[in-house]
């Protein structure tokens, strides 16, 4: 059984997210540990968020703000419990209010996967919290799609580096049931990868996935990735190649289109602790 962390702001729980959690749960033998965070929302101190959260949770703002926050959070957690119960999803609940990032990073060492709902961070984009988490998590991170309407195909990014193969492998070990999905491998500037490596990678992909097609483009990595990804239908994007660049370039305005495009879809990011021996390929 795999241990999955689902990280979520207690005040911003969106029941629609359970559709995606349910989908992931249905893929294998997972147990969901939901981590409800207090601290991030409190730091932002935005009245409108409380009002919206209150409406969504069906609560009324008749109590002092602090206890009101607590009540909304508890209502949301209760909704999560009920939703899991209705869908027969096994779960645990953890609630944390201090040392949030350090705490989640420690949890990530002892987890197979971390599911992150970025919806609430996008308003305050760029988000230092999300960047730190993506950079330092010790297990693969799955960013939830904005609106989940099923997965039509898997889209792997590949550039020949250790990181790109690492992410493909980690995804495959976690979701072996997806090997029959339509699969695209996207590579920008493929001539930068040695022919021998291409052959070995193709052999591995064809052994692991039933329906693989390779898509190539030449030019600027950001632009071409956005262009290629934009054409995909309900993709599950696996970022190994370019992933480290995406994370480290999170705060650069030039990456905004790419990051927004990526974080609107289901996005799987994994990178090894060690860095690539190879040169960085592409401009990301």
């Amino acid at each position, binding site marked *: 059984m*795999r*241990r999955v962390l689902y990280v979520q702001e207690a005040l911003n729980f969106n029941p629609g997210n359970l559709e995606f959690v349910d989908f992931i749960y249905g893929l294998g033998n997972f147990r969901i540990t939901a981590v409800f965070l207090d601290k991030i929302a409190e730091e932002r101190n935005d009245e409108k968020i409380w009002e919206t959260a209150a409406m969504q949770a069906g609560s009324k703002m008749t109590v002092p703000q602090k206890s009101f926050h607590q009540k909304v959070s508890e209502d949301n957690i209760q909704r999560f419990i009920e939703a899991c119960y209705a869908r027969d999803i096994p779960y645990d609940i953890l609630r944390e209010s201090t040392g949030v990032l350090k705490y989640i990073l420690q949890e990530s060492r002892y987890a197979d996967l971390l599911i992150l709902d970025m919806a609430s961070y996008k308003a305050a984009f760029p988000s230092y919290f999300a960047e730190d988490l993506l950079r330092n998590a010790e297990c693969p991170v799955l960013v939830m799609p904005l609106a989940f309407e099923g997965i039509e195909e898997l889209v792997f990014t590949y550039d020949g580096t250790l990181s790109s193969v690492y992410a493909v492998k980690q995804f495959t070990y976690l979701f072996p049931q997806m090997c029959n999905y339509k699969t695209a491998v996207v590579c920008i500037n493929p001539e930068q990868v040695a022919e021998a490596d291409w052959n070995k990678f193709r052999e591995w992909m064809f052994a692991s996935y039933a329906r693989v097609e390779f898509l190539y483009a030449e030019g600027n990595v950001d632009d071409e990735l956005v262009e290629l990804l934009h054409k995909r239908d309900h993709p599950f994007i696996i970022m190994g190649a370019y992933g480290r660049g995406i994370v480290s370039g999170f705060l650069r305005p030039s990456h905004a289109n790419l990051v927004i495009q990526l974080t609107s879809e289901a996005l799987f990011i994994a990178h090894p602790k*060690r860095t690539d021996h190879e040169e960085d390929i592409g401009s990301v």
Partner: protein
Amino acid sequence: MRKIIIAFDGTHLSNGAFELARRLNEHERILVLGLFIPEIDFSQPTVELEGEGIYQPYNAYVEEDKIDDHIRIFENNCRKHGIEYITQKTRLPYHIRELAKECRFADLLILSIQKFYEHLRLGEPNEYLRDVLHDTECPVVVAPDKFDYPAHIILAYDGSRSSVYAIRMFSYIFPDLCTLPTTLVYAAVKKQSEIPDQNYIQELAGRHFSDLTFLLLEGRKTDELHAWLQSIAKPMLVTGAFGRSGLSNLFRKSFSTNFISDYRYPVFIAHN
């Protein structure tokens, strides 16, 4: 379908290594690359070939007929058990770096090369060999010449990222072995009363291993560890960074010095 590499040294055809692959194939179909390496070059490029533990490149006579026989036996075994296979006889000189690179595009490397095992068994592996094991881009099983299919799993845990990663990877690659009796051992260097982050590792390992017990070995009680290890039949050791903090001194000593006799078992190493 998983891609497994078995690296043979040409003169030994390990039954244990093939058996591991065969059992893996029963659980999920595998593609196995039989890599026959007559002699491996352990030399460190750009460093003078002197000093302890560094091997001179080998240019001596290679028993080609014997290697060809072994390739035929391997192919027959694969066909007999319905395993998809590729065989490759490497050219000389074959450098160990080439082997590490081959692993980027594989899910597991089974090293059935006696020199590797002897390096691990007869004391600390030299720095370079240790680095190569760590550079290998997929998990590695360093296999002795002969061993039985594992009946007990020993997880060497020290609270480090590397040791937890190894435990996770082992469960992904060998799910069928996760139902065996498993002991998570924390071999403390100092006197210590607790396993680090015990609740956390219990949460994770408890999900993956169905018959799991915890063992804390305190201080420098090597005898205790040896006695315990000898009581375990057909073990397989799972470890992170070999020779660094991942495998504590206590564990390494017991592995290397007290089992020079016939007591041999495979070691699974994963490092990210």
